[in-house]
């Protein structure tokens, strides 16, 4: 079961990066990076998954019953925040790029080279 999850994680990473490499629109590029980042969530949660276990919240179940890994869930929370932060900054840059360069095509944003 988790083998599928790992395949999905690798696929998301590579297809997200591919989209970013061949992108012709900055917003599309940012969303592709989001897709690539979500591969890390899938990976972390898949690493923590245990067959037949419950969520690590002991409101209804007794302490000691099998649960999935709580630590990777906390890590994934942090990971989501990291992604949100980068997306916010990149979108702000996209808005400014549209204003200053008149385009959001990465091919048109060529001020720095050499």
């Amino acid at each position, binding site marked *: 079961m988790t083998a599928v999850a790992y395949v999905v994680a*690798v696929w998301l990473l590579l297809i997200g*990066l*591919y989209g970013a490499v061949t992108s012709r629109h900055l917003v599309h590029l940012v969303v592709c990076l989001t897709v690539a980042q979500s591969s890390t969530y899938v990976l972390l949660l898949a690493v*923590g998954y*245990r067959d037949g276990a419950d969520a690590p919240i*002991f409101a209804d179940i007794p302490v000691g019953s099998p*649960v999935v890994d709580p630590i990777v869930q906390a890590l994934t929370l942090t990971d989501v925040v990291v992604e949100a932060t980068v997306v916010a900054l990149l*979108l702000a840059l996209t808005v400014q790029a549209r204003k200053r360069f008149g385009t959001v095509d990465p091919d048109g944003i060529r001020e720095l080279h050499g």
Partner: protein
Amino acid sequence: MSPRGRAWLFVGGALGMALLLAWGLAGVPGSDVPLGRYAGLLADHAVAERHTTNVVIATAFDYRALDTLGEEFLLFVAAVGTTVLLRATREERDEERAARLDEQRGVATSDSLRALGTGLVGPTVVLGVYVTAHGQLTPGGGFQGGVVLAAALLAVYVAGTWLALRHVAPVSALELSEAVGAGGFVLVGIGGLLFAAVFLENFLPFGTKGDVLSGGMVPLANLAVGLEVAGAFGVILTELLDQIVLRRSASG
């Protein structure tokens, strides 16, 4: 590089990366083994030690609270950075004044949209506060609750106009909330330093498991994070929405 060359270069690299990742992932133990020692330790002891039922929140806000502090400040930088990057230039400030006058005349929104938006604001705020306050008991916590609160702000924008949003949640209030939340978390940590000799040590009484005020400093930390997240997302949303108004005034 030409677009085709770029794509082929990437595809070559991606194939190599796929092989590497597959080789590496093959070594990860499957899902039938018991939890690792660290995770097992927390799962077994967090409830008794921290009087919380949500082990993930106990992990994030107590055992690994330093990571959460860093994460809080990541959001803080997101809001500050967005403000900095979308800072109006001298020419734009005049346009903004013209845009405000435009908005005061009102932009027509459809009735159903206004009804839906207005109807959503109240329950969303309640849900956000509930999720924030009950983080130590049920799935949720400061981060999730803060995002829900920010969604309430977005509902205000959808229901009314951009000006209504600015009235309900002026940027200065949002920035204050965000900074107070971020600073608040550090202060909780310093509280630990002062009262319990170690930074971020849980220094408040634990209360009974299952109560809202259980878990010692976890509810306080939750509150700080909720304030911070709601403020940060509010600032980011407002800054980006400002740009729409600027564009509208520039073209119309």
